[in-house]
C-alpha cells in the first residue's frame, strides 16, 4: 500500500474510530471507578458513530439536503442512511448513559463508594 493522501485519510479516519472503541473497551475492562466505566461506554458509542458516518462518506460529497441551489445534486450526496442510524444511536446512547449514571448514584448511596473493588458485597 503506497502512502498517498487518500490512504492516509482512510487510515486516520478508521484508525481514530477504532482507537476510540478500543480505549472505551479498555476503560470498561480495567478501570475500577464506576464513572470511568460509564465514560468508557460513551467512548465506545462515539467510536461506533464515527465509524458509521465514515462508511457513508463519499469524496467531495455534499450533505444530503436539497437546499436552494442544490436541488439537482442527488448524485453528489453522501449516503443518508448511516446518518439517520447514527441519529438513532446517539439518542439510545444518551438513554444508556442516563440509566447507568442513575445506577451509579444508587450504588454510591448504598455502599458509600464508587470503586467496584471496595464494594464488598460483590465478592463471594
Amino acid at each position: 500500500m503506497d502512502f498517498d493522501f487518500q490512504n492516509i485519510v482512510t487510515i486516520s479516519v478508521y484508525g481514530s474510530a477504532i482507537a476510540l472503541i478500543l480505549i472505551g473497551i479498555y476503560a470498561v475492562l480495567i478501570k475500577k471507578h464506576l464513572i470511568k466505566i460509564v465514560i468508557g461506554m460513551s467512548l465506545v458509542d462515539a467510536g461506533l458513530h464515527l465509524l458509521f458516518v465514515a462508511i457513508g462518506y463519499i469524496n467531495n460529497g455534499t450533505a444530503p439536503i436539497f437546499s436552494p441551489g442544490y436541488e439537482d445534486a442527488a448524485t453528489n450526496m453522501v449516503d443518508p442512511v448511516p446518518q439517520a442510524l447514527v441519529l438513532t444511536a446517539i439518542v439510545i446512547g444518551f438513554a444508556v448513559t442516563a440509566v447507568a449514571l442513575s445506577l451509579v448514584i444508587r450504588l454510591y448511596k448504598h455502599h458509600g463508594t464508587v470503586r467496584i473493588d471496595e464494594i464488598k458485597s460483590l465478592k463471594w
Partner: protein
Amino acid sequence: MKKFFVIALLAILGFYLTIAFLQIPFGQNRLGQPQDEATVGAYYLNNTKEKSAVSNVVTAIVVNYRGFDTLGEVTVLFLASTGLASILYRRKEEEVERINKPSSSLLQTGSKFLFPLVVLLGIYVFIHGHLTPGGGFQGGAIIATGFLLMLIAYQKYHVSHSMLTWVESLAGVLFVSIGLWGLITGGTFLENSYFPKGVLNSLISGGAIPIIYIAVGFKVAAELTGVLDILLNTKEEKSVPSNQNEK
C-alpha cells in the same frame, strides 16, 4: 496480569477490525447510478424530492421511511426517563438544599437573559427540521440545555413534572395518532399522503413530516429536561452508608 490479557485482547480486536475496515475504501461512491440503485440510500436520495417534498433526506428517513423505528426510539427515551425517576425515587419530605453556596448574580442574570434565546433557538431548529440540518432530537436537546442553565444558576428552580408529563404524553399521542390516521386513510402506518405536500424548500412542505418532528421535539425536550431535573435534584443522604459497619 489482567491488564496484560486485556491489552492482548484489544490488540487482536484492533488488528482484525483494522483489517476488516481497510477492505471498505473510504470516500468511494457505493450508491450506484440513478438508473441502477445499489443501496437503499440511493433510492431515498432519488425519490425523496418528488415523493415527499422534503429537502432534508435524513429527516425524511428518520420520520417517514423509518418512522416506526423513531417511534420505538422515543419510547426508549421515555423508558429511560421513567426508569431514572423510579431508580432515584425520593419522597418529597426529604427535600434538601442542592448546592450550599448560591451562584453569583452575574450568572443568574445572564442565565435569565439567555434562557428564552436558547429555547427560541431550539424551537427554530425543530420547526426547520425538514429544511436545514437539525430536527426534533437536536432541537429538544437544545431546549433541555436551556433548562439545564436555569437549574444550575438557580437553587430553587424546579420544573413542574406534571407539566412535563402532559407535554410528553400529548406529543406521543400526536405522533401515534398521525401514524394511525395514515393507517386508516393510506393503508400503512405513518403513510404520508393525506396532507398537501407543498413546495420543496418552503416552510410548509413535506406533509406530516414537520408535524411529527415538532411533536418529537416537544417530547425529547420534556424527557431530557425531566432527566436533568431528577439527576440534579438528587442529594447524597446524610445517614451513614450501610457498608461502613462491616469494616
